[in-house]
């Protein structure tokens, strides 16, 4: 069977920290998200905010794709040179569609980073992106519902969830997720879907920028405030808003810098330049 391509928001996918190793000949691996998506392949449409060359061969690329909830990190590997060159030639920012396999990086026990390895990349457009957001909202809502149904059962099994009409992959994923994730904050995910919906309905934002200027500005602020142990997150945000940046933008730029590896958190709530 061909693995379906999950539509999943970056915020949910990036919070995944469990992997399911399946049995069978091909032993596919799945990223299990807190809402029970069991992802081997995923489909993303968003705004390409950054493409960088990685490795020494001059072929591999790492791209960042922004959706209304966060950023998907996508790799194009040397054995997919066509996909890598499509990424390399794409303008930033622009709409992009990617089909990829779940990529799992586990530098040490208990630390897990998920991203996608692109199998296909293509220029996209606003209409397709909106359709993607809609599909992703639908699929996320279905899993939120399944989680809630499962939480109301004594010992939920995939079989019981199937009987309620959920697709097999969702039924399996949700019953597994409840076992390995503790206290999944459902409100947090409902809010995420709400934000995605309002992203489309309320005043259309232009293609979001890569925030190049803002990145530099924020780095400067952090450099000034970091001292020995790092700058306090809340104070950085306060300072940046004082300098005229919107709070939501500051937060987003912070995430960009974190994901780029320009800054890190030496301890919770503090940030420091690398």
């Amino acid at each position, binding site marked *: *069977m061909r693995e379906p391509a999950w539509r999943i928001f970056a915020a949910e996918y990036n919070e995944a920290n469990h992997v399911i190793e399946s049995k069978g000949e091909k032993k596919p691996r799945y990223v299990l998200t807190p809402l029970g998506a069991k992802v081997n392949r995923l489909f993303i449409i968003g705004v390409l905010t950054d493409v960088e060359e990685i490795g020494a061969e001059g072929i591999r690329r790492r791209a960042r794709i922004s959706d209304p909830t966060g950023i998907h990190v996508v790799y194009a590997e040397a054995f997919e040179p066509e996909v890598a060159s499509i990424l390399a030639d794409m303008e930033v920012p622009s709409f992009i*569609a990617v089909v990829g396999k779940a990529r799992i990086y586990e530098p040490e026990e208990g630390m897990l980073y998920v991203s996608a390895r692109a199998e296909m990349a293509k220029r996209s457009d606003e209409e397709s992106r909106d359709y993607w957001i809609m599909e992703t909202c639908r699929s996320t809502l279905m899993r939120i519902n399944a989680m809630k149904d499962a939480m109301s059962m004594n010992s939920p099994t995939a079989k019981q969830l199937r009987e309620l009409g959920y697709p097999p992959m969702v039924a399996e994923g949700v019953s597994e997720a409840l076992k390995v994730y503790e206290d999944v904050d459902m409100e947090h995910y409902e809010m995420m879907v709400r934000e995605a919906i309002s992203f489309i309905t309320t005043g259309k934002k232009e293609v979001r920028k890569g925030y190049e200027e803002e990145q530099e500005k924020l780095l400067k602020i952090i450099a000034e405030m970091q001292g020995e142990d790092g700058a306090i997150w809340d104070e950085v945000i306060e300072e940046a808003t004082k300098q005229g940046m919107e709070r939501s933008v500051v937060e987003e730029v912070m995430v960009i810098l974190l994901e780029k590896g320009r800054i890190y958190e030496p301890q919770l709530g503090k940030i420091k330049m690398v």
Partner: protein
Amino acid sequence: MEEIEKAVEEILATVKADKEKVMEDLKKFVDYGVPLEQAKEAVMSKYGEVVKEKKLKDIEAGERNICTIGKIIAIDEREVEVRGERRKIYRGLLGDDTAILPFTAWKDFGLNKGDVIRIENASSSEWEGQPRLSLSEWSGVEKVDYDIELVKRAPQRYNLMDLKPGLSNVEVRGKILSIDEREVNIGGEIRKVFSGTMADETAKIRFTAWKDFGLQKDDVIKIKNAYVRKWRGAPQLIFDENSTVEKIDEKIVMEERVTPLYKIVEAGGGIDVLMEGVILDVRDDSGIIFRCPECNRKLRDGICEEHGEVEGKADLRIRALLDDGTGAVEVIFNREISEKLLGKGMEDYMEVAEEAMDYSIVHEDIIDKIVTKPVRVKGDSLSSDFIVTIFARDAQIIKIDKEKEMEELMMQLEGLQ
């Protein structure tokens, strides 16, 4: 004492022997001070490796060396490719008075529907959550000359959409949309069979009735004890002299509804299904192809495998991967539908390609125009080996009413408990 009785039961579960004798032998060993476990082994080896027949309901997935007796309820042959070699395998249903299980025979044992057989050295694997028997090169199969009773359990009620090949003893209701009568020759005997299509609110399905139930178009019927097998890449409902068919006074209103792709993948295909998904890939052999004017086969380098070198007839077709996040199928669009999806005619593409002296330009334009586009497709499945292949009867790019969709999503969100 209790321990000894337990040991006797265990021995009898694996070898065929007389209970009294086993007990006697076992006691003898124990009286001589042989530990029970060793005594058990000694007795077992005395009665040899004769494996006792198991009832079908006691067979679990992952067993080996299974011996059982059952009746062939259904069987059909199909060709599969095993390591590059075409070979025939046989699939069907085997029943006894406790259960009905699907089986696969990897060689021709000369089996026919209705045969009662004794099987030795079969194995079992898991398939769709239930055990499936596997008869291999090394299995022994012999026909026995008596009949056996089949399990009488309450039939399970299904919607037509949920039927998948391998199910048996199903109960369904539906409306006959079409029915044809024909005669077939089975082992020298001419029999009448009735085939057609029927539908309920959820799906349409092809059926075959091996008995004259006096059915007519537009009859609404309830069928008990039917079974499902795969035919031409789609599930097919079969009912026969073991089934009961009753006309019922119910209305069946069929409405167009979108079937999620995982359902089609699970059922191994379907007919007249409506689906929605996003096109995630276009196969390399999409675009302008040349067909043999004699047999319509696709030419390879201007050569037809049947008719040799011929003047090819141009055609436009697309083979695409459709994915809705729950499952994926392959869809074939013919010239007419392809032109509609692309908004461009084949003649125009011919011109462009001839000017560029390169037909791959058409393939590129197809990728550009339809990959990542949401599409609604109606069609029938043709095959379902690795992936279900659908032949499209109609298709269009989905235009979304954003406001309406978002309102609906918002309502769903508000409706969460």
